[in-house]
């Protein structure tokens, strides 16, 4: 039981993290376009599911806290609050808190509790401020005539006194649901109170002693409110009064009165509220009459009023809010995907076999079938792979967030530009990339980009730019992060490395070698340890993390111009389209995505060639004879084939004996015992059951170049 509960809990955490990520993304977008109501909706939705799930799985604090945030966005949604940068900042901070809260279900630690408290305070402060501002703007500029009149027509404020009888719970009525239903109608402040509670001995735990005084602003009319209570009418005291024909939640006085009332738990004095209401109504009519006078020049008035316009139209749009967008994705365990992938692999192998048989027997019908099957399997393969691939875009929000937060902290102005975000990578790879990328970004912000003053002095634009670019290159994905900041001084790096004892003093280093020093452990050029970069995790960890997923990191920097860090990652696909070639007795597969052209050459030409350069199709190109590099036996045939491949944008030719044709290769690892084998990335099983080896052309080029020079 507890086990399955824990299972649910981890599932909830998974989901909550997704929700939080979505929330963050929506918030970031909201910053750019504060009026977009669908974004507010998204924020609201994420908060709502967090709250619900949190309460269900024992994350009480989280749920409590989210509830508070939800209220704010409810207010924005209903047009009572404007989205402001302060509000967003405080919400973003809360998002961090939410993440931390997720780590501790149930009772949270003291420190976290304190954080919650102060955060709650901060939120309240911002909300109060914003409401005031909002009211001021309403009074000063006042919105469009039409919508201002709409409000009194549509929304009215009601006072509801709801006192259920003690035995109401016996029928299984959940009073809280009633309140929830009521909340759907509009904005509401419920104030619970207790009445005639017996002494402890006589207290019946299944009886209800609670009553509610509720203020509700809604445009639905009194009948709708009555409908909510329809099933409990006979078991409760219910009074509904209309206290104002306006939305009193727009009145500052009313709101402060509400908080006072709920704090002191005093009995509600209706007459006082009514007087507040009439005051407020007057102020609105006043504004309206002013508005009539100033109507002519109102159009050019200000962007603020336009904002109101939109906000209010958002209220209108939300009245039909029953329709929550259904999610367009489902959660599937990775095991299921792996299983599917294995089946597809098996199928591809069988299909290759079918192909082979079909080509041996010249039966037209068989051929047609085998071709159809081939087409289907390759489509099936592609769509199966795409399941586990996710675009890099999913990381962007966190990056934007980091740039937003950190640049504010250090007082720098930074613009993050991103390109190629639809580049897809395996989910596990994206996960292991997050931390290194965040670290590189942090470095750029902290060390790279200069302060606005300094930038101005150096004749650069005040706002620094960090460019994030992702793209495919052959069988690799490359992610580049470049900034236009101060750059790295290689000499300084070298001096530091000597000082730290990483390298001996008299060591000769090329420029690149010096730059690469930053990847050594125990290296940090910044004198002072900042909160951002100097937390003991250096570029060496970045390097290690990326190497762990078989990637490579490169750094290039020009003093005064900026730094570029590029990460090269292999595309891990388990089935590829390949070019089948033969060298001596062994068949090899070269990934088709890397091949460019094939040229026939004479063996004598290869032997004659000087410095491994050959002229193919009019272009000079360096080549490697795979016979030699793979130490193949036997004698080279007279006619050989040159396969031109792309290696990091450079064309390089590889000499093989024959080219057999195109195949779909299911990659099977060579296993632990071949761990030192770099040139062969995998093996594949052919239709006839024999094995072909898949060449890692990048490794071949690198290895061969390294040996030669």
């Amino acid at each position, binding site marked *: 039981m507890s086990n399955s509960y824990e299972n649910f809990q981890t599932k909830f955490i998974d989901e909550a993290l997704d929700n939080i990520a979505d929330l963050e993304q929506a918030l970031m977008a909201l910053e750019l376009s504060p009026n977009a109501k669908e974004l507010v909706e998204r924020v609201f939705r994420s908060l709502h599911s967090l709250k619900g799930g949190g309460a269900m799985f024992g994350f009480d604090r989280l749920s409590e806290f989210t509830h508070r945030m939800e209220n704010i966005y409810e207010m924005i949604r209903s047009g009572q609050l404007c989205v402001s940068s302060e509000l967003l900042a405080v919400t973003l901070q809360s998002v961090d808190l939410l993440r931390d809260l997720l780590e501790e279900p149930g009772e949270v630690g003291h420190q976290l509790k304190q954080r919650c408290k102060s955060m709650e305070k901060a939120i309240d402060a911002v909300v109060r401020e914003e409401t005031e501002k909002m009211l001021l703007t309403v009074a000063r500029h006042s919105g469009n005539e039409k919508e201002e009149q709409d409000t009194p027509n549509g929304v009215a404020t009601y006072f509801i006194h709801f006192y259920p009888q003690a035995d109401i719970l016996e029928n299984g009525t959940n009073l809280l649901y009633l309140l929830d239903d009521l909340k759907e109608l509009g904005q509401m402040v419920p104030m619970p109170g207790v009445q005639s509670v017996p002494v402890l001995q006589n207290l019946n735990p299944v009886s209800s002693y609670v009553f509610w005084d509720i203020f509700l602003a809604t445009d639905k009319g009194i009948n709708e409110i009555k409908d909510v209570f329809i099933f409990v009418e006979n078991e409760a005291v219910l009074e509904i009064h209309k206290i104002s024909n306006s939305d009193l939640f727009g009145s500052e006085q009313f709101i402060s009165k509400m908080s006072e009332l709920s704090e002191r738990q005093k009995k509600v004095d209706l007459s006082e509220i009514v007087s507040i209401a009439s005051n407020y109504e007057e102020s609105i009519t006043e504004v309206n009459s002013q508005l009539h006078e100033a109507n002519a020049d109102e159009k050019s008035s200000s962007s603020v009023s336009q904002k109101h316009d939109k906000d209010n139209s958002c209220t209108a749009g939300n009245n039909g809010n029953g329709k929550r967008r259904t999610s367009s994705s489902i959660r599937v365990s990775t095991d299921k995907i792996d299983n599917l992938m294995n089946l597809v692999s*098996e199928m591809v*192998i069988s299909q290759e076999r079918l192909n082979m048989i079909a080509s041996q027997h010249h039966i037209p019908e068989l051929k047609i079938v085998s071709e159809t099957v081939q087409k289907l399997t390759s489509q099936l393969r592609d769509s199966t792979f795409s399941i586990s691939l996710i675009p890099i875009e999913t990381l962007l929000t966190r990056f934007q967030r980091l740039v937003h937060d950190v640049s504010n902290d250090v007082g720098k102005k930074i613009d993050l530009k991103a390109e190629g975000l639809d580049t897809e990578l395996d989910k596990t790879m994206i996960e292991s990339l997050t931390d290194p990328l965040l670290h590189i970004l942090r470095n750029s912000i902290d060390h790279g980009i200069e302060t606005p003053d300094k930038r101005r002095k150096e004749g650069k634009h005040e706002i620094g730019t960090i460019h994030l670019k992702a793209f495919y290159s052959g069988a690799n994905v490359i992610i580049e992060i470049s900034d236009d900041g101060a750059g790295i001084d290689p000499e300084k790096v070298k001096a530091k490395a000597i000082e730290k004892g990483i390298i001996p003093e008299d060591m000769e280093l090329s420029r690149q070698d010096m730059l690469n020093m930053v990847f050594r452990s125990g290296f940090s050029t910044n004198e002072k340890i900042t909160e951002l970069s100097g937390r003991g995790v250096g570029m060496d960890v970045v390097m290690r993390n990326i190497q762990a997923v078989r990637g490579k990191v490169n750094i290039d920097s020009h003093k005064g111009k900026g730094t570029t860090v590029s990460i090269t990652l292999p595309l891990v696909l388990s089935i590829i389209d390949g070019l089948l070639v033969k060298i001596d007795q*062994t*068949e090899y597969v070269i990934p088709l995505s890397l091949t460019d052209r094939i040229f026939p050459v004479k063996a004598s030409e290869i032997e004659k060639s000087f410095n491994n350069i050959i002229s193919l199709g009019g272009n000079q190109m360096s080549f490697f004879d795979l016979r030699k590099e*793979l*130490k*193949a036996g036997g004698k080279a045939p007279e006619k050989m084939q040159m396969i031109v491949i792309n290696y990091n944008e450079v064309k390089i030719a590889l000499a093989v004996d024959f080219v057999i044709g195109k195949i779909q290769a299911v990659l*099977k*690892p*060579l*296993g*632990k*015992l*071949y761990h*030192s*084998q770099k*040139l*062969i990335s995998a*093996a594949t*099983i052919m239709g006839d*059951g*024999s*094995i*072909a*080896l898949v060449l890692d052309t990048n490794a071949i080029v690198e290895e061969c170049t390294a040996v030669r020079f």
Partner: protein
Amino acid sequence: MERENKKMIDSYLSFRLGDEIFALHVGKVQKILEMRDVTEVPRAPDYMKGVINLRGKVLPVIDLRIKFGMQPAGWTKTTCILVVEAEVENEMVVVGLLVDAVQAVQKVKQDEILPPPSIGSKFRSDFISGMTRVNEKFFMVLNIDLVISSDDLINIKEIQDAKEAFEKES
């Protein structure tokens, strides 16, 4: 089969490598395959014979003769591949062993297997987990996990010396 059950069984599969006879606990051996074409993997150690297709999986094959420092032998009628399961760095690895001939499955009681004699400082006796005599024939039980994990070649000469020492003792 569970580990516990495997231990209960006291059967050993003996095989021949040159003139020597070795044995493996039957729990380690998954199957015996006929010799077949092995796809060589370039630039690998000599004893790594290559890979074969075992029911859709790629199985690395080790030529035990080379691993034990003997001359590689041709492909004879009796040459075969033992598919064994070994533990390498806490991971189960399935690997094929190329041997000259498979002989028999014999029952040997646990207490009949004696520890290998320690002769000379150079000899790594840990490749051999024990020695025993069945019907006046000596054979050596291999510690296959270690043989496969190690990148070193094993000197058959030392093993022969160890066997002789053992023969004298008993």
